[in-house]
């Protein structure tokens, strides 16, 4: 099927959030998605709640928004609706990029046609894909803009990783990474980044070729960090861990929106090849060291500290953010960067205090529920 790009209103935005469904006994992942979704059918929520690959995950989709304020209001309403429904089922829900101690062997594939196909093809990788990410969509005026923006946003991917990182534990162990989730994604053969095409025409040629080989059926089969999303007329940033609060999720979306506005207006003409020579290394640095990552700037040929680079970018975006209504979220992100606060730190502190992973997840679920009451997140 040829790719048809549906143009959308530029800089409109929305998010998808994959969240954990937990039991309240030992806060391990529970098989509750189907019951939760069944109950949510009756709730009148803005946006959508959908199944994900295993039965311990659900995905929140916001509607298309123009401003941060409406997005946040909407996400809070959906979150509250889900929390209420989960309460009645004795389930809990939480943010975070990965469950710290669940066993992937205990996960069950959610029986939709697509997920069964994925499971059939990828074997155990499908169950190991029980990780939780935030996707941010930003609308673009043309398919060429989508290709441009996909490359232009790539140098900023480490910022999004460090800000959202919230999976320092995996299989009951400290991983020493701020986010361990991305390893589950990297295992897929079609993970990574878009090839260095620069126009939509080139992109469709590439896509047709891949489709011709039978490697992909649709854009969904590319698990890239950023990808054009022709069905929505957006680019989709898929790198973030689901943050521990809905508030941070909305702030990250506001950052993406402001950044996209700047990049579309002040177009960069740098060649993309040097970028992708260092991309994997920068990505690793951000996953491993969070704000303290040492990033390589391939054009300036120097190393920069992620936190300083992020703060400089946020500072640069501030004047533009005023008109967009994004000053508050950008200031909040700068605050986090200055204090070196992200979900991974929070989780590590909780673990240091409780010495019990179930307690950490219990508090994580509480934080998700009452994010606005906890300053700094």
């Amino acid at each position: 099927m040829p790719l048809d790009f549906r143009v959308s209103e530029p800089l409109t935005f929305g998010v998808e959030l994959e969240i954990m469904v937990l039991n309240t006994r030992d806060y391990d992942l529970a098989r509750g998605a189907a019951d939760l979704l069944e109950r949510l059918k009756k709730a009148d929520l803005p946006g959508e709640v959908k199944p994900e690959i295993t039965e311990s995950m659900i995905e929140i989709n916001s509607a298309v928004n123009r401003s941060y304020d409406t997005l946040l209001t909407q996400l809070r309403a959906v979150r509250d609706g889900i929390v209420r429904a989960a309460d009645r089922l004795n389930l809990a829900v939480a943010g975070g990029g990965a469950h710290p101690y669940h066993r992937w062997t205990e996960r069950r594939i959610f029986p939709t046609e697509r997920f069964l196909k994925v499971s059939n093809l990828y074997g155990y990788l499908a169950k190991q894909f029980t990780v939780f990410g935030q996707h941010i969509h930003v609308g673009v005026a043309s398919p060429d803009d989508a290709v441009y923006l996909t490359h232009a946003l790539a140098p900023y991917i480490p910022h999004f990783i460090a800000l959202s990182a919230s999976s320092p534990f995996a299989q009951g162990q400290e991983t020493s990474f701020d986010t361990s989730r991305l390893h589950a994604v990297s295992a897929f053969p079609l993970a990574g980044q878009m090839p260095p095409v620069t126009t939509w025409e080139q992109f469709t040629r590439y896509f047709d070729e891949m489709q011709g080989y039978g490697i992909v059926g649709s854009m969904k089969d590319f698990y890239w960090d950023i990808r054009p999303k022709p069905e929505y007329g957006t680019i989709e940033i898929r790198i973030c861990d689901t943050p521990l609060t809905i508030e941070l999720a909305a702030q990250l979306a506001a950052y993406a929106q402001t950044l996209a506005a700047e990049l579309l207006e002040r177009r960069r003409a740098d060649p993309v090849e040097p970028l992708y020579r260092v991309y994997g290394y920068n990505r690793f640095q951000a996953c491993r060291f969070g704000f303290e990552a040492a990033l390589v700037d391939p054009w300036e040929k120097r190393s920069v500290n992620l936190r300083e680079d992020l703060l400089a970018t946020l500072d640069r975006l501030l004047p533009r953010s005023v008109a967009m209504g994004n000053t508050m979220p950008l200031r909040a992100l700068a605050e986090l960067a200055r204090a070196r606060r992200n979900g991974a730190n929070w989780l590590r502190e909780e673990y240091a205090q409780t010495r019990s992973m179930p307690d950490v997840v219990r508090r994580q679920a509480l934080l998700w529920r009452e994010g606005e009451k906890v300053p700094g997140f």
Partner: protein
Amino acid sequence: MQLGFLPSFPLTFSYPLLFGALLVAGMVGGEVARTFRLPRILGYGIVGFLCAPFAQALGLDLLIDEARIFVNLALGLVLFDLGRRFDLQWMKRDWTLAAMAVSESLLSFAAVFATLLTFKVPMVHAGLAAAIAMTTSPAMLLFTVHETHADGQVTERAMSIVAMNGLLASILTTMMVASSHLADKPQVEVALLHPLYLFFGSLAVGAAMAWLTRVVARNIEKSKDVHFTLIVGMVVGAVGLATMLRLPVILTLLAFGIFSRNDDRGYELLNVNLAPLGRLLYIVLFVITGASVPVEALGAAGVLALLFIAARGCGKLVGVLALAPVSGLRMRQCLGLAMALQPMSALTLLMAHDIGNIFPRFGQELGDVFIAAVIVMELAGPLLVQWGLRIAGETVSDDAGSMTMQLRGARPRDA
């Protein structure tokens, strides 16, 4: 030549030998059942039944008396585990759960009570028997849940309801013991004090053990291994304490579990998986239960036992289905839930046995009915639970993405 160092003949089987033999035989029976895709518990029970005729010849009848401590420990662990899954907070958030537990308990009570009255069983005895009928075998449910890796609303609700019906039955039998006392020996003090002692004594011991467990938990490393030892130690201790104080083990351990779940505001006690130990004890429990029920009881009380099972089963089914529309569960899930509440096993026998000890006439009159009902349910119960959890879609074989399916269906190009 003197051979005094040799054992004297005929050889007497020591209890550990018999016990070990029963454990291994049970395990083998379970694995045989497994090859026929039947629940393992069914195998344990059948091995028990097969052992029963030889029991006397082998001195097993003595073992069954001696093994009472193992039965108590196994049930103690099961009830504690069950009590830990009884979540008052959930019942507050979703009233339909408590309502369902009450409705299925009361309807099964009423149905059994009415059936026994028709058969001219004295009212007090019919009431006690109906109260026992409210309970579901927690061991059969927990074991099947574990064996089938069941997870979901029906599984969780079934466990809460079983804890609740066990609690209601314990309270009701304890109260009825009072009126039975009055009927048997008109001593007002005994009639009042005995049930009060049983009831509040059990609650007090349960609460005290829960408190003590939390205090210890607070001061030790918060690791699953350490907490596992703590919990097992405390459960065994609580069984001993209840026996020593002549309190009902069932209510005491259920109370211990419930208090340690619902009064643990600081989350000091970890939720440890008791299955590794539970498994051993379950096998012993089911083999011994099987071995201690004389099959002749089926002949003696067959018809009444079947009516007893049918009335109880209908009560539970109607009790659950009646609340289906408000529960938010689908009809299929409710049906599955009602099936998961059907099993009767050692808990039923133990309650009947204990009441029989207090009132011999109860034992003479209804002992065979319980035994026959347990024989039937030892066979039907595991199948019903497994079926119930399966139709609710919560067992592992329902996982459409299981590896075996993948291996069967995978092709190199399937994107």
